[in-house]
């Protein structure tokens, strides 16, 4: 074993696993039992990572592909969706026409002046009405607000990449309950009112997330059809988010309609409640 730092030895051994060492380096490793043991540890780590996770259920795959293609089909695709695909810069940068740039600048300046002139009286009302120096702090705070607004504008691009739950409307939230029994009791007669504004972050599911579990459930039980789904909301039991789905159902014999309530864990879409009312 050499006196080299751990990191440089591991880098050499790791590169050797990938066939990235010179013949001399490779021979040196093969001749040192301690290095061989260490390389085996790295090989084990590499093989562990290399084991593929289990493939997705084909129903889920279809659902993901369908949702993707649906966005492709949509006219005027939402420009803020998704992660930006990397692009290459053109080898020959495009030159802007200076006259066109000047025209755009003048147009923007004109619009800006027009807006200031329009908004001026109301914004300056405190100053013109009172002529008081107290207006200065207001002005400062207004500037601060403007700055905040400007900052919000500049950070808008990054916030666009926030989670689907932040980008899209979220599924309604009906509250948290102490136990499955308490939730079942609350759902016994009708769906509790949605309290969207009270929903903690963890209960804010995107419709896509709700659809995922819904698709899994509907694949398991063909009687559950999307067209029969009346509602999808979130609820919590002891802090864990659940998706509650309400389906229109028919009693055996089809003599009368009823409602089937199914609550599933959001992570694994596993059933927690399933009853008819």
């Amino acid at each position, binding site marked *: 074993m050499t006196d080299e730092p751990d*990191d440089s030895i591991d880098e050499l051994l790791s590169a050797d696993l990938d066939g*990235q060492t010179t013949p001399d380096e490779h021979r040196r490793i093969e001749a040192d039992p301690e290095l061989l043991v260490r390389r085996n540890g790295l090989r084990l*780590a590499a093989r562990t*990572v*290399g084991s593929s*996770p289990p493939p997705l259920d084909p129903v889920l795959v279809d659902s993901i592909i369908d949702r*993707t*293609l649906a966005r*492709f089909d949509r006219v005027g695709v939402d420009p803020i969706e998704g992660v930006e695909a*990397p692009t290459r810069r053109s080898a020959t940068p495009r030159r802007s026409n200076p006259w066109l740039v000047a025209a755009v600048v003048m147009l923007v300046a004109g619009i800006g002046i027009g807006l200031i002139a329009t908004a001026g009286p109301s914004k300056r009302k405190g100053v013109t009405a009172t002529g008081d120096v107290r207006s200065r702090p207001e002005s400062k705070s207004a500037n601060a607000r403007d700055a905040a607004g400007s900052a919000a504008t500049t950070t808008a691009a990054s916030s666009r990449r926030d989670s689907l739950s932040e980008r899209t409307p979220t599924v309604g939230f009906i509250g948290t309950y102490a136990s499955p029994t308490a939730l079942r009791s609350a759902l016994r007669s009708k769906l509790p009112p949605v309290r969207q504004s009270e929903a903690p972050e963890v209960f804010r599911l995107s419709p896509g997330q709700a659809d995922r579990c819904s698709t899994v459930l509907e694949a398991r039980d063909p009687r559950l059809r999307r067209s029969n789904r009346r509602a999808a909301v979130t609820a919590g039991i002891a802090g864990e988010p659940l998706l509650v789905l309400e389906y229109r159902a028919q009693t055996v014999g089809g003599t009368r309609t009823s409602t089937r309530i199914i609550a599933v864990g959001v992570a694994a879409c596993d059933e927690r409640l399933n009853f008819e009312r």
Partner: protein
Amino acid sequence: MTDPDAGLVRAAQDGDRAALDQLLRAHQPGVYALCRRIVGNETDALDATQDALIAIVRGLDRFDGRSKVSTWVYRIATNSCLDEIRRRRRRPTPGLPEGDRTGDHQVARFDEQVAARIDIDSALQTIAPEFRAAVVLRDLCELDYAEIAEVLAVPPGTVRSRIARGRSALAAELSGNQPPTTRRQIRRS
């Protein structure tokens, strides 16, 4: 060598929906596997996969064929996964980590394969995302150093170093050894 996906991409760029469907289906397993290993749980991996596929569709017109389609796809997917990790850091954690959520209803379904998978995931989660991504791209996706450098937009020397340090930390984690002090800097804070 001819890129096997080049024809599909050209057709999809020309508006062939079936070609796009085929392209997405061809790459979905790789994208999901990459995301599953990088983000560490199924729910977030599905979100990252969906985001990545949407980004592929949206970026299709800008793909100029200078890199392999698979490299381009992995680059989008890796960015999507790293974004998902950043978003997750801003979200409160719902109760126990997924690996610990073993209620009565789940215990019966546990088998050795699941336990092993959780070990891999939890071990991977102990190393920083940029090292994790490099290791996963090499050992799971089997990209070479140059391709990983392109995906991660870093020099090949950095790739070699990240892979080595990621594997080293992972080896220590899997063997139950405390990593040496020199490696702590690559572990998650």
